[in-house]
């Protein structure tokens, strides 16, 4: 499976090596320094370029995805440093756990900006946390490259410091909505988790469906829920019947939901299609968790389709696989490219000053694992500002059990499609 999946994409690292020993030591020494807050640190000779990473590493945040992004960031720093670093200085990344909580995000960003004096911050996974962090970077004028936050608000706020290299809901939702209309679905059920990600996703898709006059019904559930029997039975009993079941949920909920939906004979069936949004369906642990329930399942893929892979994509996928025994998801690629983006921006403008980095990103023209990166400076629409407008996205549908998402047929959009159909009904 490729790694360029989605904001929720993750992979099955079996946390044994979650934190290599070397890291622990490094963190421990950093911690020792941090316990003496009042005293400044003496400047060193070969001062590294410090970058700050923010993201969830513990509950209630999306810790699984956060960890993968952290791994990928570390790989990027290693790769850059092997090539001699940037401006002759090595890259050093400081990681901050935000737990998916706004106040933690604020504290993390404050620490990175003020205490650690990083040149730039990147990462994050929760839009609500990113919105809190943005206020801090805006206050201290530190560039912030948001990786995996899909809320349009992040870029729409128009802060000059804030960039985004992931997709955003307006892009994703339009794609999904267009596909639903093109594939001819007549009655959709949208079920999402009741949190910032789920609600923003739902609103976008609902807007597109309303615009196309496609009937739909909205459902939400607690993000911690894992039992969906009653819910699925209710959907199944709906009159008129649903022909499309769209789900957005974190792993812990999406897998039981997929299994229930299949075992209760709701979707994917000849009558009803199942679309699992959010990236769980391209996770390495996906098939282990859902088994045959995943056959004919549809999901989006925010990575570069395999046919469009460049050398960097191939090299990164291979290296990630070798190191962590799994394919990197889209969020990991975003994190990997984000470090490179920042390094390129610093290199091109020859300085780590905020204005230099911002200028460097605005004028960036660089090919990474997810294609050619450029950041828009247009404010029309507002969310386009500092947004990676060409962020890749496509829709795939599995046609075999245990299929790699790399090999699954791409059904949408037409420019990437590998099969002539838009949707294949499961055969009985």
């Amino acid at each position, binding site marked *: 499976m490729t790694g360029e999946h989605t904001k929720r994409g993750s992979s099955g690292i079996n946390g044994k090596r979650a934190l290599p020993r070397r890291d*622990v030591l490094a963190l421990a020494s950093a*911690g020792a320094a941090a316990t003496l*807050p*009042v005293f400044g640190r003496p400047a060193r000779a070969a001062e590294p370029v410090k970058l700050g990473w923010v993201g969830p590493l513990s509950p209630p945040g999306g810790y699984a995805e956060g960890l993968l992004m952290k791994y990928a960031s570390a790989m990027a720093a290693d790769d850059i440093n092997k090539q001699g670093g940037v401006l002759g200085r090595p890259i050093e990344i*400081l990681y901050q756990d935000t737990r998916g909580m*706004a*106040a933690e995000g*604020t504290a993390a960003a404050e620490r990175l900006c003020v*205490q650690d004096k990083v040149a730039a911050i990147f990462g994050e996974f929760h839009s609500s946390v990113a919105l809190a962090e943005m206020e801090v970077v805006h206050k201290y004028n530190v560039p912030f490259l948001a990786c995996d936050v899909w809320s349009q608000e992040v870029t729409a706020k128009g802060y000059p410091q804030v960039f985004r290299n992931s997709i955003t809901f307006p892009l994703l939702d339009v794609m999904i909505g267009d596909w639903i209309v093109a594939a001819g679905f007549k009655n959709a059920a949208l079920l999402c988790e009741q949190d910032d990600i789920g609600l923003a996703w739902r609103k976008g898709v609902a807007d597109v469906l309303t615009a196309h006059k496609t009937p739909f019904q909205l459902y939400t559930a607690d993000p911690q829920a894992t039992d969906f029997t009653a819910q699925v039975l209710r959907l199944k009993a709906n009159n008129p019947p649903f022909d499309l079941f769209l789900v957005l949920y974190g792993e812990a909920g999406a897998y039981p939901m997929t299994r229930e939906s299949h075992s209760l004979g709701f979707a994917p069936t000849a009558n009803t299609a199942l679309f699992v949004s959010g990236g769980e369906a391209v996770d390495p642990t996906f098939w282990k968790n859902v088994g045959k329930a995943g056959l004919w399942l549809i999901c989006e893929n925010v990575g570069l389709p395999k046919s469009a892979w460049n050398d960097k994509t191939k090299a990164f996928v291979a290296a990630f696989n070798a190191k962590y025994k799994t394919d990197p998801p889209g969020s990991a690629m975003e994190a990997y490219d984000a470090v490179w983006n920042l390094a390129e921006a610093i290199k091109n403008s020859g300085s780590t000053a905020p204005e230099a980095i911002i200028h460097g990103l605005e004028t960036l023209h660089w090919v990474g694992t997810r294609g050619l990166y450029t950041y828009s400076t247009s404010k029309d629409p507002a969310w386009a500002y500092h947004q990676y407008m060409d962020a890749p996205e496509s829709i795939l549908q599995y046609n075999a059990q245990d299929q790699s998402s790399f090999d699954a047929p791409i059904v949408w959009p037409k420019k990437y499609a590998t099969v002539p159909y838009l949707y294949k009904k499961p055969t009985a």
Partner: protein
Amino acid sequence: MRAPDILLSLLLAGLAAAFPFLVNAYWLHVMIIGMIYAIIAASWSLLAGFAGQFSFGHVAFVAIGGYTAGILAVSLHVPLPLGMLAGIVAAALIGAGVGWTCLRMSGPYLAIFTMAFSEVLRITIVTENEITGGPGGLNVPQLFHAQTDLPYYYLILALLVVSVVGMMLVLASRWGLFFRAIRENEQAAAAAGVKVTRFRILACAIASGVAGLAGGFYAPYIGILTPDVASQDQMGLVVAMAIVGGVETLPGVVAGAIAVEFMVEALRSYGQWRLVLFGLLLLLTMRFARNGLLAPGWLAIRRLAVLQGQRLIRGTAD
């Protein structure tokens, strides 16, 4: 107050006033958050430690204070200071209501009832996202338009001092005596003529109002208000802060809250291990220093000072 207390208080006051100039903006931010928690933990302490009502839903009132101020400011364009005041009133009134509802409960029933109240509130905030912003958060306007946190710092310092000193005065008064009498033995308190119902509700209202004040400050300071303000995790953190400080001395609790907040932030560099370590520290503290770490330390300092020849008059906060 004994002389060494006064001396120490003066020293602390000086230190507090000079603090922003001794540290960088990050640790100033940590201090501000620590003081917000200090208000919450101290008010919880008044309720649980002194009035004997072990609430596990106190953070709900932080949310009520914050969301009242935030929603009023965002939806109705009410000025923030007015909104914060409304938040305090709302929290105190709802707190009194909750206090009235659980008059007949005690011990674990009270703890779980209040926890349920705060969970229901949190779920409601999450679900009614048209009004509350839901899990995506409510963007609250700033209180000050300054480039630094200095105004926030001095405001929260003032609020902390006023609320904690106010609560200490309450506790030193006959109300405080009645709170403790009710905590110790409700039946005996009634037989002694204490209006148990009135004072139980009063304790709830005071503690909730103060928690609402903390919430009202928190909302514009962080700028975004999310439902996890009222999560059980937050509640546990507040309880931990109070216990580390020694529940039955408010200055101890304040010190405990600030110390725990600094510790949680200092552990930040440990990444994923941070909360593991935090849990472990909590376990070890509870297991081996049950009366908290700070209150016994403070008492030791005071005893030392007293030994220096201070003539003592009985204090009430033993």
